[in-house]
């Protein structure tokens, strides 16, 4: 597949507040395909770029349900069906004794789902990404804040978009090659 030569237009800001405001303006100006980068989780930034809901909780719920159900059914099947063993006259299906392992399996699967679900939804691991080509992007993991308008946005225009981003008073603007 041939990529478009330009990935997007990246603007650099020096504070979290300015970035959130800039992201709001850009979203309100009608740009749909935008993203922001920050060295820590900035409150309200995801909402500002129009990203309101994520599916991590659903993945965790499914993981937990699978873990709990399989944990309980495994114990039931082993203790009552496959290998019934009389221990002190206790019933084969002695459910109170199965609660601990059911609980641990619920937590284990939910935690695995949280971590791997989050990574998968984020598309990680992804060692190469065009945005790393931007010269000052290494500061996104230190003390700088970035906003990008992707070239795939219908409103993207290298002159108009640059002019719009300049109106947000960024520290620098660069076009990111893909």
């Amino acid at each position, binding site marked *: 597949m041939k990529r478009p030569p330009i990935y997007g237009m990246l603007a650099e800001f020096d*504070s*979290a*507040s300015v970035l959130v405001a800039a*992201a709001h303006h850009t979203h309100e100006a009608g740009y749909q395909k935008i*993203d*922001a*980068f*920050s*060295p*820590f*989780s*900035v409150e*309200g*930034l*995801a909402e500002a*770029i129009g*990203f309101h809901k*994520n599916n*991590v*909780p659903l993945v*965790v719920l499914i993981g*937990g349900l699978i873990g709990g159900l399989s944990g309980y059914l*495994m*114990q039931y099947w*082993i*203790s009552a069906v*496959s*290998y019934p*063993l009389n*221990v002190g006259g*206790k019933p084969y299906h002695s459910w109170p*004794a*199965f609660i*601990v*392992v059911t*609980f*641990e*399996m619920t*937590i*284990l699967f*939910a*935690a*695995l789902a*949280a*971590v791997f*679900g*989050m990574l998968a*939804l*984020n598309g*990680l*691991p*992804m*060692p*190469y*990404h065009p945005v790393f080509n931007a010269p000052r992007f*290494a500061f*996104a*993991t*230190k*003390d700088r804040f970035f906003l990008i308008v992707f070239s795939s946005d219908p409103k993207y225009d290298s002159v108009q978009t640059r002019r719009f981003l300049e109106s947000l008073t960024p520290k620098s603007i660069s076009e990111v090659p893909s």
Partner: protein
Amino acid sequence: MDERSEQAGGKQAPVIEPGYTFGSVTDKISAIVLTRPTSTSWFIGFGAFFLVTMMLLYAIGYLLVRGTGIWGINIPIGWGFAIVNFVWWIGIGHAGTLISAILLLLRQSWRNSINRFAEAMTLFAVASAGIFPLIHMGRPWLAYWMFPYPSTMGIWPQFRSPLVWDVFAVSTYFTVSLLFWFIGLIPDLATLRDRSENRWARIIYGILAMGWRGSARHWFRYETAYLLLAGLATPLVLSVHTVVSFDFAVGIVPGWHTTIFPPYFVAGAIYSGFAMVLMLAIPIRKIYALEDFITERHLENSAKVMLATGLIVAYGYIIEGFMGWYSGNRYDAFTLWNRLHGPYAFFYYMLIACNIVIPQVLWIRKLRTKPVALFAVSGVILVGMWLERFIIVVVSLQRDFLNSSWGMYYPTRWDWMTYVGTIGMFLAAMFLFVRILPMISIFEMRTLLPEAEVKE
């Protein structure tokens, strides 16, 4: 946020000293890993503990050849040091999860500067703990029999046994602690990738960071996942020592068969864990000049947690004593008498001194902010908590129902070598950790700065 307004009131020491910026916090913590030259004392310390780890491997190797007969265990005391140390180490691990998960849910943002190395401490402590039941099994190479897998023998684990619950609890705990620690490291690994000058360091940190770039979408999912993990780890950590206590409480041995065990074990675990956190934090903040990040506030708060959990533990001892008398059960009453007057009575009085009497000095506010004093009290608590497990395991088994089956337990040098060896392994791992990974969570420290607040 509450934390910042509280600082403005100026009553307590701040969580982070004023004057730092995103850049200077990042530089200060990452420099410890990236640019600070490795000192001779680091090599000496690591080398010494590495040698102690080798002693552990020797002790385990000899055990594999000769069997558990080289230890002091015998009937009636079949559990001995292995189980004492297992419970002690698992308990120490609990503070890390408490700091990283429970304090996160309670919005105690002072945790941000100690959670990373407390989580590392948890991992290494649980790893040390896991060794003991494994090598205590007699035939450790068959350890996989504990897990439910379709074997050609056609047999399965017995799920009504607390010992099988323990396998699930401890392995889940280790896995979740590892996940929690690693997911917390990802943004900081990206910082190290972008900061490091060394090509190999960049490649290795780059692989571990998995291409993290701090996208707002990523952060949103990340924070959700982190919060959910904390919510999952909270009941988990409470369950782990509860299940460990079931190993005892479900048995009928006098001194074990009591319902106070689960809460009292969990409180004791957090008690000893915070003592270990302080014993590590106090030298680390001094050596690496991190007093601005790990402030007197952290020391004082940890001391308060120790004081509170210590009182719960004291309540446990009182209830144990009371039930020994009130139950009217002659075997329970005798267990109490045996603790107070039996051959191991000295250790019981030591336990009361270390766990209840001496830690009461923490009521004195001045002492709670004195690193040297706190370090000493923490050491005393760690000894006390080890003695508690010794009393529970050994003194209960030593004299049970029939005096024809009474006996004594004397640890051998192999017991001591294994125990001291795990301490060496734990500390060697901590040395490596502070050298190659950021020991304070950089991105969570950034959120503590006033400039992190988004103004409308």
